[in-house]
């Protein structure tokens, strides 16, 4: 891909894909921007004209904004901690030679293939149901009062569900990183007198640091926009209303398209900030 000619051919061949992607992205983006500057209430008068930055100001000054930010941060943070910690442990476990390795690995990846809506419903009805759920049975077996998870421990429940979905992703990325660790380094550290925990801390963890960063950034982008899990479980009640969910409520429940669009623009900016970090780190990774 060095000559002028091959470069222009390459550009030509890529053009259809680029145009399609651009259209796919630009149309909704422009519409969001367009509506965010309008007072647009579909059931209460429709398009009521331009309002400048009113929607942006109202979105952040509403009493639900900061609690929503907090809920988002708690969920994203909680899921990140759980998936990274358990991901590292699982990756190290799966890296050990064992019987039935292939099957075990597929089982570990499986949750990633389940649609968010389905997995949230499974958790809600099979595990967390206060009467018939497996967890309720378990609690009763030990003589404890079953918890009604989704109302009493709503945040914990959602974090659990989402972590379960994202653990495979973290494990997979970290597993490939661990597999690329030169075993002689670990042996050298062993001969240098480093016991297991110190080997983990001084050799494995630094080796994984870049993979961990990538897991964190990619997951953050996706976790900022989780929706189905909240929609089918708590419906945004019990303090689980995240930013995404707030935008949804503004648009569909309050029928205020302009306000919701302004929230959407905030979300786009937020996601892009994370994306910039991600691109830089992934780019650096490719250079190295």
């Amino acid at each position, binding site marked *: 891909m060095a000559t002028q000619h091959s470069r222009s051919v390459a550009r030509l061949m890529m053009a259809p894909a680029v145009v399609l992607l651009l259209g796919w992205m630009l149309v909704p983006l422009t519409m969001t921007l367009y509506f965010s500057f309008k007072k647009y209430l579909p059931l209460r008068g429709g398009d009521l004209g331009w309002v400048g930055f009113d929607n942006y100001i109202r979105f952040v000054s509403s009493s639900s904004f900061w609690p929503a930010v907090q809920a988002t941060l708690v969920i994203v943070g909680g899921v990140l901690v759980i998936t990274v910690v358990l991901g590292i442990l699982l990756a190290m476990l799966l890296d050990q030679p064992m019987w039935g390795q292939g099957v075990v690995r597929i089982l570990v990846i499986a949750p990633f293939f389940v649609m968010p809506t389905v997995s949230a419903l499974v958790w809600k009805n099979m595990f967390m149901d206060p009467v018939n759920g497996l967890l309720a049975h378990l609690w009763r077996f030990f003589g404890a009062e079953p918890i009604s998870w989704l109302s009493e421990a709503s945040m914990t429940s959602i974090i659990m569900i989402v972590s379960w979905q994202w653990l495979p992703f973290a494990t997979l990325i970290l597993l490939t990183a661990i597999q690329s660790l*030169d075993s*002689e*380094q670990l*042996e*050298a*550290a*062993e*001969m*240098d*007198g*480093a*016991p297991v925990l*110190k080997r983990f801390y*001084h*050799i494995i963890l*630094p*080796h994984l*640091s870049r993979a961990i960063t990538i897991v964190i950034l990619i997951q953050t982008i996706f976790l900022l926009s989780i929706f189905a899990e909240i929609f089918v479980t708590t419906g945004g009640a019990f303090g689980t209303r995240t930013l995404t969910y707030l935008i949804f409520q503004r648009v569909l429940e309050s029928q205020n398209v302009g306000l919701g669009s302004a929230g959407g623009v905030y979300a786009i900016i937020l996601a892009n900030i994370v994306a910039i970090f991600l691109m830089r780190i992934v780019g650096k990774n490719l250079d190295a």
Partner: protein
Amino acid sequence: MGRIQLKSVTKSFGDVQVIPPLDLTIEDGEFTVFVGPSGCGKSTLLRLIAGLEDITSGSIDIDGADATDVPPAKRGLAMVFQSYALYPHMTVRKNIAFPLRMAKLDQAEIDKRVEGAASVLNLTDYLDRRPGQLSGGQRQRVAIGRAIVREPAAFLFDEPLSNLDAALRVGMRLEISELHERLATTMIYVTHDQVEAMTMADKIVVLQAGVIEQVGSPLELYRTPRNLFVAGFIGSPKMNFIEGEEAAKYGAQTIGIRPEHITVSDTEGDWSGVVSVSEHLGSDTFFHVHETGLADTITVRADGEVGFRHGDRVHLTPRADVIHRFDAKGLRIG
């Protein structure tokens, strides 16, 4: 101190026995080299001594104490790996200091030893670099530095020079030999390069398929190889083996004659043949002679000025006093 004794050590991976029962003593301060063809178990043997692999049966004594079940860190041995195994995220200083930090030495002592090792190995200017920013030879020296700061009872080297280019290899070979002279610590060195084995070793251990074929000083192995394998393995170019009638004249099944012990002339000699390839190295010339009626090829080493070419008929005369004789089992006679 660093006397290492292997007593009927065996090693199996699953059903495959890689090392059949093996006895070996390495004296304190000795530079021992393990040589042998690829896959013969050199690395495995070294890793057994290091404790990185568990032995299947037998025992290992270090300085008279049973070390069979002692974990690697407690054996007081330091290993230099073929891939160097430096810690990529640590600077050279931290790499060298790592074993000392693990041993919980105080910072002043650590600094002193690291500086000492760095100056011995010419690494002082590179202490704040990372391994990724060093050349192959410098990385090798860092790996050696990390080994010497621990002041181990013995050093274990697993083909430490095989990733370096030829010129650097010669330099590092000298440096390691000098290091051995200065520290007088036991060193066990694995290689399949016979020049390294011959030049560095006090004692060479020749292995084949996990079996020790012969142990001895480089010259012992060169002068009196115990069997055909050692005879063919030690010395470069390889010893010529001749069977049949010519060997029977000497009362042997096979006779061996080294290329440097054959004189070549264009007029007269015991044997005659046609030069197929001549390799001119400047100082020496190697002739590969065909059609002798003795063996496929006879390799002859001559002075660099001798100028036979492809297709020339030459006459060869072996030096009778250095002909090696082997019996039907391949063992040396006399």
